[in-house]
Every structure is written in C-alpha cells, then in structure tokens.
C-alpha cells in the first residue's frame, strides 16, 4: 500500500514551514522526494553519512543504545532525520516561517 507512505508525507508536509521531505534507503539512495533531483541527491548522500556517523557515536558510547532522531539546526533551516534499520526519513523545515 503506497498510500501509507503517501499519507505520511502529506501529514508532515502539512506542517508549517516544511520545505521538503525525502525518503532514503540505507545506502543513501532516494526513494521518494518532494524536492528537485539535485537537491534530493545531495541531501540524501550527505545526511546518510552524517546519520551513520551520529549513530556510531551513540552506539559506541553505549552499545545498548541507538539513534532515533537527529535534528540539525542551521541559520536558515532545521533538518530532521529519522533513521531506521533500512530507511531514512529526512525533513527540512524553515523555523522562521512558522
């Protein structure tokens, strides 16, 4: 049921200031996106690496622990990443717009 994913994206997109959402697999290959291709590829590639690194940090500190959510606040945006075993969900929000 593709609609489940579709619904999720719509729900997130409905929030104020959300610029884009990307679904990426574990290898950093985008599956679904609401952004243009080049931006998507860039975000997917860079954030997959960052998330892997962040995850290894959390796990190295405590092997029982795991990363569940990553928020990167920049001057312009806030990037939110939710990592799971096989997939990554990335959302970009402009907090000033809210």
């Amino acid at each position, binding site marked *: *049921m*593709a609609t*489940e*994913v579709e*619904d*999720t*994206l719509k*729900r*997130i997109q409905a*929030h*104020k*200031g*959300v610029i884009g959402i990307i*679904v990426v*697999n574990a*290898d*950093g*290959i*985008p*599956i*679904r996106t609401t952004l243009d291709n080049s931006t998507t*590829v860039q975000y*997917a*590639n860079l954030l997959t690496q960052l998330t892997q690194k962040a995850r290894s940090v959390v796990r190295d500190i405590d092997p029982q622990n795991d990363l*569940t*959510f990553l*928020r990167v*606040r920049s001057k312009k945006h*806030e990037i*939110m990443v*939710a990592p*799971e075993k*096989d*997939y990554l*969900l990335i*959302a970009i*929000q402009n*907090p*000033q717009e*809210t």
Partner: protein
Amino acid sequence: MSEPEKKEVSEKEKETSKQDEKEKDTAQGGKKSPVSGKAKPGSGKRSGTPSKGNKGAAEKGRATPKGNTKAKTKEDVKAPTPDPTGEGEEEEEGLPEGCVPLFMSAKSQEIFGCTCDVDVTEENPIKVIMKADIMEDFFNRAAVCDFHPVKQAVQDFPSDEIVIVYDPDFKFGQNFYIAITEEAKEKILNPFGPEGEGEAGAEKEEEVVYKYIPPESKEWVSHGSEKEIKEENVVENRRRIKISARRIRKEFGAPCNFQDRNVADAKDAYVECTAYEDRTYDLKKIELDKSVQAVPVLVEEGTNTDWRYPRNANTQYYPREFSDKEKETIEKSTDLQTFAKDMVPRFELALQQNEIMDVFYIDWLHLGDADGSFGNKADNHLKEYQSFTDLQFSKDRTITAIQWHPTIKGVVAVAVAEKLSFDERIDNCAKVIMTPSLILIWSFTDPIHPQLLLEAPDDIYSFQFCPSDPNIICGGCYNGQVVLWDISAHADRLKQQRGSNRNKKSNVLPGFEDPNALKTPVVRYCAVSSIENSHRAAITDIQWVPDHMELNRMGVPQENKGLQCCQIMTCATDYCVLVWDTRPVKGPGQLITTKETDKGPKNPIGVPNTFKHLDLSWKPVLKVTLHKSEPGGDHSPVKFSIQERQGDRGSLGKATDGTDLSKEAAMGGGFYTKPGSGKDKRTLQSVKTHFYVGTEDGEIVYVDWMPQKDQDTGKIQTPKPDFYHAIHDGPVNTLQRSPFFKDVVLCVGGWTYTIWKESINSGPILQSSASTVKLSAGHWSPSRPGVFYIAKVDGSVDVWDLLDKTHEPCMTQNVSPVPITSLYPFPVSQKQHLMAVGDTAGTLHILEIPWSLRQPTANEYTGISNYFEREVKRRAFVVSRWDFREIEKRELEQEHKRKMGIAPNVQLSEEEIEYRQKQEYAAYIDEENTFLRELGLKDDDEPLPET
C-alpha cells in the same frame, strides 16, 4: 755523576793522555812505543819489545798509572763504566780517535777472514789482520783493495797487526772501521785494561801508608772564567750622544698654552703603543671549564619522485538512483510502510515544537533595532569631510546654488555670484560685466582646482543637471536668461580618478604639450534664450520637467515617449513661471538650423552644437502668470514645486490613449526630435497640474498652470490661484517635496518654515515658531522621512526630526562663520551620505551625515505618515473651529449690536422685515395679555376681543 760531566772528564782524560803522548814523542821520538816512553822511573816492569802489541799495552796500562795520582783519579772515573756499552756510547759521540771508517766488500771479507756475521759479529766485532796480508792485498788488488783509502795509514802503522772493527749498524758510515794508530788499536782491543790496572793500584794503595802532604799553592791556571768576568763589566764602547735644545730668549719662562690639535698635523705627533704578547709572563692553564652537548647527527636526505607526463583526465559520476519500478516495489514493501508509520510521531513532535516557538531566536540581536535614533553621542554630529574654495573664482562671492552630479560620485557643482544688491550691481556694472560668471564643478579628488568651469552670460542663481543626461546642464541667469551647457566633451575629466588629470604626461611629443593641459577647462554655454522672450528678473528657480511627461502649449501634461528630459520650468520675480522646450521648434526655422549644423561648427572653439537651434531664439512654450485672486498686483514667485517626480512612472499607466500604437512606435524622443502634435500623444490624466509657488513676499500660492478661458475677458490665461497664504515673514527660499511623500512640501522663508500637505488648503499642517535668526535654506533628508535640514544665516545647520520633537531642532551645529546660502544632502553611497553646504564667502563645505541621521529608524515611514495624518485631522478640526468661531463671533456681534440698539447693518429683504414685524407684534400681544391678566382686567376664559 751526571752523564755530561762524565764525558767531559773522559775527554779531559784523553786530552791529557794525548799531551802526555806528545811529550813522550818529543822526548823519545820516532817509532818508540808511547807506552814505553811514558814509563816512570818508579815502574817495575817494562815491555821490551814493542811488537808484543796487546800484551805490552796491557802491561803498560797497568804500569802507567802507578805512582801518578792523576792516573788514579782516571781509573776512578773509568771504573763505573766497565761494560762495552760505555764504548758504544763513546762511539755514538763520534768515531774513536785514530779510527777511520772502512768498507769491506764481500770479497775482501773473504780474503781477510772477516765475513760479516760469521767471523765478526755484533758481540765480537774485532778482527786483527796482519799488516803483511794487507800489504799483499795492496799488491794483488791495488786500487780495488778495500784498504786502499787508508793505504798510507796502514803502511805507516807501526805494528804488524791491524785491528778492524765490525760496524754492523753503519754507525760511522761503513761496515767496518779501522784503527790507524796504536792508541786506538789499544783502546779497541783492551777497553778494560785500565780497570785491571785500577784494581792493581788499589792493591798497591793498601800497601802504601797514607802520608799527609800539605797542599801547596799553585800557580793560577786560566780556564776562561776571567773572560766572563770581563764581559760582565760595563764599559763605554762608544761616544756619548749629545742633544742641545734651544728656545727664543723672550719666550723663556713664558707660560705655556696647551691646546688640542690634530694628530695628523705633525709627523711624529702620534706614537702608537700596540698590544703584544708578554713573553716574560707565562700563565699556565691549569683548570678549564668545558661542556659537551650531545646532538643528534645531522642527516641530509632527499628523494625525488619520477616525473610523470601530465595528462588531462576526467571522471564523471552520477548518483545511484532507483528506477521507477524499483521505487514502486520498495514503496509497497511492508518495511517502508511500518517505517513511515513509526516515524510520523517523532516528526510531528519536532515540527510542532518549531511551530510553537523558535527556541533559537536570539532576542539580543533584535533588541537594538528599536532605539538606534540618538543613542550614541559620538555619532550624531555632522563631520567636516572636505571643503572647496577657489581663490580666483569663488572667494568672496556667494554660493547661490549647489547640485550634486547625479551619476558620478564625488562630483558637486556650485554656482557663484557677486555679493551685491541690485543697486550696487548697477553701480559696479562695469566690474560685474568684466568678471566671468561661473559654475564651478568640484571633484573630491582635487580640493584645490575645480574640474570644470561653466561660463555664463550673467550670474547664475539656480541650475540643474539634466536627470536623463547628466552632461546637459541648464541654468537661470540673473538677467532672466536660460542657459544650456553641454559638457559631454569633458565627462571623462570628471570621471577620472584622483589627480590623474593634473599629473599625467600624456603621449605628447616634447615641445608640443598643450600649455592649457593643466588648466581647468572653461566650458562656454552652448545656448541661451532670447532676451526679449526671457524673464525680466533674475531666475531664482529652475527645474527639468520629469522625463516621462511634457507640457504642451495649453499646459496639458502629455506622455514623453523618448523618456528624455526636454523641458525646463523656470520662475522669476517677474510674476510668471515659464516652461521651455529644448527640442527644435517646428517650421522653417528648423530647416535652417540643421543646414547650419551640417556646415560644421561655427561656434567659438569647443562649444558643441547640441543646442545651436535654440541659441538666442529660444522661446518658452508656456507662460504661467500669477495674478492675485483679488485685484491689486501679482505674485512674484521665487520658488515652485510640482508634484510629478523624475523617475516616477506611475502616471504613465493611467494615461488616456489618444493614438494607435504604430504611430507611437515611430515617434522618437530626445532633444532633436520635433515635438509631436498634441493629438499624437496620450494625456497623463493623473498628473496634478496644480503646483505650489513660493513668493518673494512670503506667500505660498497654489495654482493650476493650465490656462483657462477667463469668463470676463474671454482671454485664455492662467486661472486665479486656488488659494494663497501670506504665512512667511520673508521671501521663500525653499519649496521642496518630501522624497517619501509626494504631497508633502517643505517651505522655508523668513524666520519660519512650514510643512504643507496637498489637498489641505486651509493652511500648513505644521508651522514652526519664529527662529531667532533668519533661515536661508532647507532640504529634506534623502533617507529619513521625518528628518530635514534647515540652514541659517548665522552659519549653523538645524537638524529637525519630526518624530523626535517638533518644537525645536533635535540638533544644531555650526558649520561656517558666515551665512549659509544653500545646502544639499546627497546619498553618495549606501554607507556615506554627504551634505554640501555653501556660504556667502564662496566656500563649499562637504559634511558627512552621521549614521543616526541617515539610517531610518524602524517604521519611521509609518510613524511619520501617521503623524501627517494626525496633523491633517487637527487641521480639519481647526477649520471646523474656525467656522464655529466665525458663527460664534457673528452671534456675539449681533447680540452686542442689538444691545447697543444699533440695527444690524445687514440689508434685510421685505419678507424678512414683514416676518420680523409680525414676530414683534406677536411678542407685543403676548406681553399685553400677561399685563392685563395680572391686573385682573382680563380673564383667561374670555376670548380676545375682536380687533
């Protein structure tokens, strides 16, 4: 006993022995053995035969010392050296006496039986050879014989046995040496001889009873010591040196006067004492501080990589992507579905947090915006930036107008005029005519020399750069003429960077330099209006009509297709405002001018032909005369202000279409194109044809420039002003629209300033109280809606901030010691606003406007527009109060008059009179009735008797 002493002694011994031998030889002579000759009478034994050699010598040796004390001492001396080394030592010293080195060849060694290291060895070196054998060898081998060098010695040898000694070490040069005397032979053969004798002597001494013999004085024998003593004596061995010094007699006893002098003056005045090593002083180094530090061994190494041939190469990569089909399958996978479902709450939490509040918002950063107005004291005054004055042209003359160059930054033009009143001017007419009237164009790059001088027929009181082409400048003369300049040829000069036009040596051949290259070029005007059609008074204000509109002969604003400024408005105190068109007039005159331009420039050198068609024949297209609404004179304008602004194209959109587009496209604008007929052009309906005029008498006149048909005379002329207010107590000197509100006008005149809003005709929305000094100029701030600058004749500049306070300036700063005539703030760049201030001394001051005065505060525009609205409301209230007061006043007056019993001097109509009489009669009846009722003469019930 030390070694040298021993040697000495042994030598002495030898010497004495030799002497002895000699004595003996002389005594006994010839071939007698010296031993025998030596024999003392007391010796017992005696060798009879000298041939006995060794034996005899031994005997003799034993016998010789006997009875001789000297010999005894010799024995003692010899005694400690009994070993053969003693001999060796002696030999080392030199060849023993009477010996000669001898070389024996192997053959000779064989013949004589003395083969080296066989017959003779180092231990036993001595070999005795019979003299006869040698003689035989002489005979056999003659010169080859090894004994040949000593042949004579051998032949003379007294005994038959000759001794040779093996010298294995070649101490004396050969492998053998030969004893050629008997003594030497003895010595070699029997070196121990004396020893044996000594022993024998000792034996003898024991036998002899020691008897004391008193020492006898002996004759002194010289041993050389007297020579030493002699040498020690000091004796004169040469003549003594005599020196005599002389001095002049009169200088004897005179005091000496020592003074410095140069060392080099006299030849031997300077004796140098150089350092040298003192050999008498010798300090041995005993102790030494020393340190050693271990450092790593320094290694130098290098590597060199192979040089590869550089090659261009590129790679291209692309991100991995799923195909649509793959995406679909992934999306359908339950993994992703559950993943998406799980993720949503987390995202919503985060997103909502951001929506509710921006937690990273830094309040401090946004705090400063509110109160940036006058917080910092250090940065709120006008800073002197530069000042310009030209000793020749502008000193002691007054600056009448200032204009910044619209496009080139840092270029400002000023008009200067004589500081004379009208009467003085007439008195000094000759002088005034002779001095050139100029506009000076200054650049910040050169504060001493103006970049350009614009020459005018008479003093310029106002001028302006053309907004669409800054190389065109229009100016208004004191004599009423309008002048045009074209500085296109010198535009580069203005654009040049710092001082380059002064220092440069351009590519000119030597000797052909232009002597005027360094002089400021003077630009002659290229057109001037005809005197008869010009103003009859000094032009006090001049302005280019904005480039999007033009006025036709009827004063109707029309579209200007070329978007080039081509019309000029001027005003002078001859009661009119004129509009001039720079384009050639239609008709035959134009053809002639074009022909003339084709022929080439007939103008004075360097004057472009841009406006040749206008020169001296220029007429205004529109004349706006300013009649007063009531009879009795006209308004004499000095300043005016129209609402349309350069660059504001808003009114174009609302133009009514008068023609089709194809015709419009064919039309061109610019200075040379003919003005199109009125029908071809769209009328700009939204342009307000009313404009403000400030007069010499301090009035503000609001008038429509469009002429209308006068109802009385039927003539077409400017209508009467909508209103005018004589509100200023002196001539108006500034009338300027706010750069932010095009309906707000600042008017400065006399001792006050006023702010007007268009459509409010009842009066100004703000009027200042009278200043203590006269105001000479004013200008809105180009960047802050609520700020304007007022210049005063005491040389100071007031800064007014309407949002700060309106009853007094927020800042007053003195700029010049003499009255200021004009000022012009200008935004040179985003970060630099400069204000040009001109004074009556001819100095142009450039002041830097501080940050607080150029940076608008937050919402300043809204604040100030709200303020104006409030003032408008107040004005409306004032008007309503005026009406109220008027009615009230009238009522009071009436009341007063009635009380005084004076009929109102108002003419009443008949009906009114009748009505009033009726009212009076009714009042009388009423009064009568009440009176009768009181008296009881009249009953209420009783109807009134019929009259």
